[in-house]
C-alpha cells in the first residue's frame, strides 16, 4: 500500500513520511526540490527498508500537472492514502496583500490540495483509502494578519466537509486536522504565546487515527482557545492584536 505525502520535505510532512515508512508503507514524497526529497527517500529506504520515490513538483502553478506523481505511482503498490501537509504563510499576508502572494497562498493552501483530492479520489474510493488535510487554528476567526492564509485554510476545511458528505457511504476515510503551533520552520521565527508541538507527536496521532473521519484538533487542548476566540464579542475581538 502506497501513500502520497504532498509537502513531505520538511516539518510535519517529513515526520509523517517517517511514521508511515516505519509502519512499512510505501511512499511517494512530493515537494519542490529533488535535493530535499531524494535524500529523505534514501533515508527511509535505508532505515525502514521500504520503497520510497521522491518527486519534485511546484504546486504554485496552474494548470497543475500531476503526471510526475502518476508516473511514480506506476512503480508502486496500489494507492492507499493521500496526506497533504503542504502549506505556506507569509509575513506580507495582511489585508491588501499583492496579487502574486494572494494567489500563491491560495493555490498552495487550498486550490492545489483540492485538485489533488479530485484527481486521486476515484482510486482512493476503490481502495477504501485515506485522505488527510491540514488546516490551522488561524481559521478560528479572520484577523488582520494571516488574512489570505486563514481564508485559504477555511476554504480547505469546507472542501473537506463537502468531501466527507460526498463520500459518506463509501469506505473512504477523510479527515482534516486543525493544527496548533508546530515546532517546524513555518513557525521557527515566530514569537508565539503557546508552546509548539513536535511534528513527530502529530504524525503519531495522524497514523493512529488514519482510518477515522471528520475534524480533529491537534494537539487537542487547542480546541479551547479556538472556541474562546470564536465566541469573543466583536467589541473585544477587534481590539486584540495577535
Amino acid at each position, binding site marked *: 500500500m502506497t501513500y502520497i505525502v504532498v509537502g513531505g520535505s*520538511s516539518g510535519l510532512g517529513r515526520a509523517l513520511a517517517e511514521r508511515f515508512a516505519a509502519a512499512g508503507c510505501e511512499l511517494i514524497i512530493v515537494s519542490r526540490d529533488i535535493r*530535499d526529497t531524494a535524500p529523505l527517500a534514501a533515508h527511509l529506504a535505508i532505515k525502514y527498508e521500504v520503497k520510497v520515490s521522491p518527486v519534485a513538483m511546484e504546486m504554485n502553478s496552474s494548470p497543475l500537472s500531476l503526471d510526475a506523481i502518476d508516473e511514480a505511482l506506476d512503480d508502486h503498490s496500489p494507492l492507499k492514502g493521500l496526506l497533504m501537509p503542504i502549506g505556506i504563510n507569509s*509575513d506580507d499576508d495582511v489585508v491588501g496583500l499583492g496579487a502574486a502572494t494572494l494567489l500563491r497562498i491560495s493555490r498552495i493552501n487550498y486550490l492545489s490540495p483540492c485538485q489533488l483530492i479530485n484527481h486521486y479520489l476515484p482510486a482512493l474510493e476503490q481502495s477504501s483509502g485515506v485522505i488527510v488535510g491540514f488546516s490551522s487554528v488561524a481559521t478560528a476567526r479572520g484577523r488582520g494578519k494571516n488574512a489570505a492564509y486563514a481564508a485559504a485554510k477555511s476554504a480547505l476545511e469546507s472542501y473537506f466537509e463537502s468531501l466527507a458528505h460526498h463520500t459518506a457511504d463509501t469506505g473512504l476515510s477523510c479527515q482534516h486536522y486543525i493544527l496548533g503551533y508546530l515546532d517546524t520552520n513555518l513557525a*521557527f521565527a515566530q514569537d508565539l504565546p503557546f508552546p509548539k508541538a513536535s511534528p513527530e507527536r502529530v504524525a503519531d496521532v495522524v497514523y493512529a487515527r488514519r482510518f477515522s473521519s471528520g475534524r480533529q484538533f491537534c494537539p487537542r487542548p487547542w480546541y479551547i482557545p479556538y472556541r474562546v476566540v470564536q465566541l469573543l464579542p466583536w467589541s473585544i475581538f477587534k481590539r486584540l492584536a495577535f
Partner: protein
Amino acid sequence: MTHGIVRKTCFTTFDGTLSLSTTHQRPDRFSHLELPDTTTHRIPRGGGYSYSASSFGESSLVQEMTCFNRFLEFNPQQATLKLEAGVSLIDLMEWALPRKLYFPVLPGYPLITVGGCVAADVHGKNPYIDGTFADWVNQLTVFHPQKGYQSCSREVNPNLFAMTCGGFGLTGIITDITLQLAELPSPAIALSRKSVHGLEEAQFELASSNADIAYSWHDATAGANFGAGIVYAGHWTESTQQLKPMRFRPMTASTRAKLPLSAWNRVSARIANSAVLLHNRLKNDVSVTGVLDACFPFASNVYFHKLFGKTGLRESQFLVSEENVGQCTQALKELICETSAPTMMLSLKRFKGTQKSLSMSGTGYLVAIDCYRNARTEVFFQRLDQLIVEMGGQINLSKDSRVPPEIAALTVSGITDFKNNLFEYDPQRIMRSELSARLGLL
C-alpha cells in the same frame, strides 16, 4: 535576508561560562542553507555540546544542522555509510547495531552530531587503538557560500579535507560524510573496574592494557585522597543476560544549567568522590553492559554535569607525551595542592593519532580535569596553561572555553599552518565563531 526562518537566540557554551545572542537558522531544506546572501558571516552548529563557543559567535548567523540528519547511502560490502552531518551518534548507533555494525570513535554524549565530531576531530573511549573520528571518515561534502558544494577526501581535494577535519566549521558547512563502520564483535561489553591509589598506577594499568575501552577516573580534590581512582577496561563479550535498552532524557546546555547555583564545592566534591570510590570497592569487579551504555556514560548519569548549575564548570583537556606524563601529573598534583584549586575529578586516556588542523591528537596521555567555579578557578587555569606549555602539551579547544590566543599558539601544534591555509582558502573568512575570533582567525 532570510525572511521568516531566522530568529534571535541566546546561545550558551555547554560549560555555562559564556552566552551571547545572535541570529539563528535551523535549515531543513537545501534552499534554506543557501538562502542568506553570500557575504553573511555564519557558523555551523551541531548538537551544541562543545564546551567552547565554537558553534556561535557575535554577528554570525548560526546554521543549526540537526535537520540535515538523513542516511544517504549504505554499502554493505564495504561497510560504509554516507549520511548527513546532523545525524546524532545515537541515531547512527541505533541503526548500525541491529546490522551487526558499529562506529568505534564515540564521544560520551549520544546527541552529539557526526558533523560536530568531524569538525572537532573528537576521540572515543580508547584513542590508543581507534585513533580519532576523522581517521574513520572517507569523504566529505563541504558547502561554502562563495564556493558552493565541494567534495573532498584524502584523494580528491585533500587540502580541504585536511583543513575541515578538526577545522571547527571554519572551512564551511559539512553537509554529508561517508563513514567507515566496523563489524560489531559482540552485542555487549564486559567492563571491569580496578581501584588504584594514584595517577602513576593508573598510567601503568592503561599502558599495559589491551582492552577495547580503556580510561581512568580519579578524585582530583586537593588533599590526601588526590589521585585515588578507578581504571575502566572494557572487552567485547557475548552476553547471556538480557540487556536493558538505553534510556535517557536529552540534556542540553540550558537544561544542564537549570539549578540556579552550583552544588559542587570542596565538601560536596569530596563526599561524592569518596562515595564513588567506596561504591566501586563494594561492587562486582566486572559488569556486563550494552554497547550504548558503555559508550555514552553521561547519557543516564547527568547529575555530575547538572549539579554545576548556572554557575557552570571549567574543564581542561590536554595531551602530554609518554615521556612527560609522569612529571606532568606530579607537577599537576603539586599545583592543585598548592593553590587549593577547585578541582573535582580527573581522567586519563592513552592516545595515539595524528594531529589535524586545530584538533588535539598525537601520541601520549590525555589528561582531563573538571573544576567547579570560584575565585580560585581562573588563577588555577592560568597556572595550568603554563604547566601545559612547559610540558609541551596540546590543549583541546573544544573542551576549554577560555584558551587565550597566546596559549593556543603554543599548545595547538597545527594552528599556524591552519591559519595560513584558511586565509588563502577564504580571504573573507565568511565562517566565524567566538572561538575563531578569540584565536585571531578572522
